[in-house]
């Protein structure tokens, strides 16, 4: 049941990658690992995916590896990350700048994910500069935003180069919130790691823990009961609902319709209060546990959820009609922040961004997990803010349909299991889930004591952030907040 990996030599890599890409596969993820203690050098695993079919190439190296950016542009940030974290070099990579370890405060000779790094921090001083890209010419001006933004949002640095009103270039610098989560997880029990996983990106906590448990439970020989699967799926969909309701609210806030926005925020509040009632926490932190879930549905709760779903379906329908019937809304939403299908393909986008640009990518469809069957993907072709709005609206209806279906077919069996085996030493597995933002990917490898040896997490936002740099080109700067909110990417999950 676990994935087969194919060992690839450095000189074969290009032809292998070219071959799978020409067959329609896209880069799903790249995972680096320090396996020198196991006699395997540094391992780089390339995951390529096509409609649920996965190919895994493993490249082993001591110091350098060939960069595949020229034939697979979406590998760019993965390779930069591997260079920062392990100190092995992608030969031929177009960008030599650091990614998450800032030269302004971190010694470039220290690579934290190496196994021989024991946590000693370098002195806090300047070791080098980060060179931003520059657009030079008559009348070009720059606007710098962040890291601390004007609103109540997370930190990130945005640099706009403008000629008149039009945006010529946007450069995003992230990883301000880099917390070193992957290193923190090493050497910990799977339960301990689960609590950290809940706090990677707070508003996607349930779906992230589902993805993590999808990786870990098979390794530990845990057989999940059908009832637990169904309850987890329902909670995952409830999370999608409150995320999408909020995200649609912010869209209206940014185009000067705060009344609609506040109305949706009050629905979000209702959903979060339901979370609190069912899981004891407004974000449902720690509701999933190894072998099951910490909550259950009875008739009253089912009723309560059912009523809430009816309310949301009705209100979202009103909002959708309102957006489509109001010219000033369409004016702002349509043709704004376009991501073309070609760009989406090249950047290997996922989630709402991919589906709004005509790509049928949804983990619930590609790699079905838990109780998911026959999910109807919401796909739009235009790639603009309107398309992303409509994808979210469609997904709200779809989530409501799924939850009702799950509630109807709720299995009656026992809920949780506590049978846990010791994992095979140095065996690994991946786990996926479709968060409200897109695919969450976990790679987990255990050591011989049953502790986590290597954990890699790829957030949907990590894949989708580069898309904004293309989406805003030619738009005016006043549209940037709208484009940004229409994707609503996470900083915390991206920065790790």
């Amino acid at each position: 049941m676990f994935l087969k990996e194919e060992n690839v030599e450095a000189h074969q890599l290009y032809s292998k990658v070219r071959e799978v890409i020409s067959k329609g596969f896209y880069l799903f993820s790249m995972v680096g690992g320090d396996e020198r203690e196991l006699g395997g050098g540094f391992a780089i695993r390339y995951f390529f995916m096509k409609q649920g079919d996965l190919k895994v190439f493993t490249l082993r190296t001591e110091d350098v590896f060939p960069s595949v950016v020229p034939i697979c542009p979406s590998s760019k940030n993965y390779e930069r990350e591997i260079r920062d974290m392990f100190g092995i070099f992608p030969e031929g990579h177009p960008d030599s700048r650091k990614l998450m370890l800032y030269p302004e405060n971190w010694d470039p000779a220290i690579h934290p994910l190496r196994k021989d790094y024991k946590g000693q921090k370098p002195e806090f001083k300047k070791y080098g500069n980060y060179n931003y890209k520059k657009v030079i010419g008559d009348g070009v001006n720059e606007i710098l935003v962040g890291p601390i933004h004007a609103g109540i949002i997370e930190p990130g640095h945005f640099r706009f180069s403008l000629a008149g009103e039009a945006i010529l270039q946007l450069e995003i610098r992230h990883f301000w919130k880099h917390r070193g989560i992957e290193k923190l997880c090493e050497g910990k029990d799977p339960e301990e790691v689960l609590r950290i996983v809940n706090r990677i990106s707070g508003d996607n906590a349930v779906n992230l823990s589902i993805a993590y448990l999808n990786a870990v439970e098979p390794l530990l020989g845990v057989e999940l009961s059908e009832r637990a699967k169904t309850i987890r799926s329902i909670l995952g969909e409830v999370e999608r609902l409150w995320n999408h309701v909020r995200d649609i609210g912010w869209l209206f806030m940014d185009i000067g319709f705060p009344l609609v926005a506040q109305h949706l925020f009050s629905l979000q509040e209702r959903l979060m209060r339901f979370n609190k009632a069912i899981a004891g926490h407004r974000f449902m932190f720690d509701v999933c546990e190894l072998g099951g879930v910490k909550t259950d549905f009875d008739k009253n709760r089912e009723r309560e959820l059912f009523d809430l779903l009816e309310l949301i379906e009705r209100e979202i329908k009103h909002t959708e009609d309102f957006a489509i019937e109001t010219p000033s809304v369409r004016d702002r939403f349509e043709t704004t922040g376009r991501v073309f299908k070609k760009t989406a393909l090249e950047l290997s986008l996922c989630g709402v961004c991919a589906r709004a640009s005509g790509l049928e990518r949804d983990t619930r469809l590609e790699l079905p997990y838990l109780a998911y069957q026959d999910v109807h993907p919401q796909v739009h072709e235009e790639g603009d803010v309107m398309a992303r709005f409509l994808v979210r609206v469609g997904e709200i209806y779809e989530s409501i349909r799924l939850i009702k279906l799950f509630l109807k077919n709720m299995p009656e069996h026992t809920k949780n299991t506590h049978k846990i085996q010791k994992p095979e030493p140095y065996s690994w597995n991946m786990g996926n889930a479709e968060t409200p933002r897109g695919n969450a990917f976990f790679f987990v490898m255990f050591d011989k004591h049953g502790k986590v040896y290597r954990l890699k997490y790829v957030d949907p936002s990590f894949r989708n952030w580069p898309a904004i740099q293309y989406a805003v080109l030619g738009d005016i700067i006043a549209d940037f907040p709208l484009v940004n909110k229409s994707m609503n990417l996470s900083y915390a999950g991206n920065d790790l």
Partner: protein
Amino acid sequence: MLFLLRRSFRLKTEEIKTEHQELLEELRKVIDNTLGGSLFVREVDTGSCNACEVEIANLNNPYYDVERFGIKFVASPKHADVLLITGCVTRNMLVPMMKAYHNAPKPKFVITVGDCAKDCSYFKNSYAVEGPVERHIPVDLHIPGCPPEPSQIIEGFLKLLNKRGR
């Protein structure tokens, strides 16, 4: 549109009367008495998981709507009376946080929100974390929780203002 209007206001008044009325009334009184009617807040995220930010943003939803009592979230630390700091202070956010702190005019108050800001919570011992906030700047009040709920954040504001009132 009218339909939306009616629904929105119905939801709002209904809930607040039953739940947080006393708390919010007290907040109004304290802000009027001690600060002449307004409190400007700048939120600074130094490495949270975004849950604290979501809850702070929720303070402006129709259920709480703290702006009607004079609590306003401002765009720049230069306009702020209070810095609301979340997160475990990552190495990369340390300098921006200090800049925000030094740019806030005196007298200023610092409130830390959430467990990460107090003791780095799950993220202590990480190579990338330089927290907690207290190590770098004086903190006037801490609001515990992972993340604290909106009503708890409002209680925190009250506590700070009462302390100041005396």
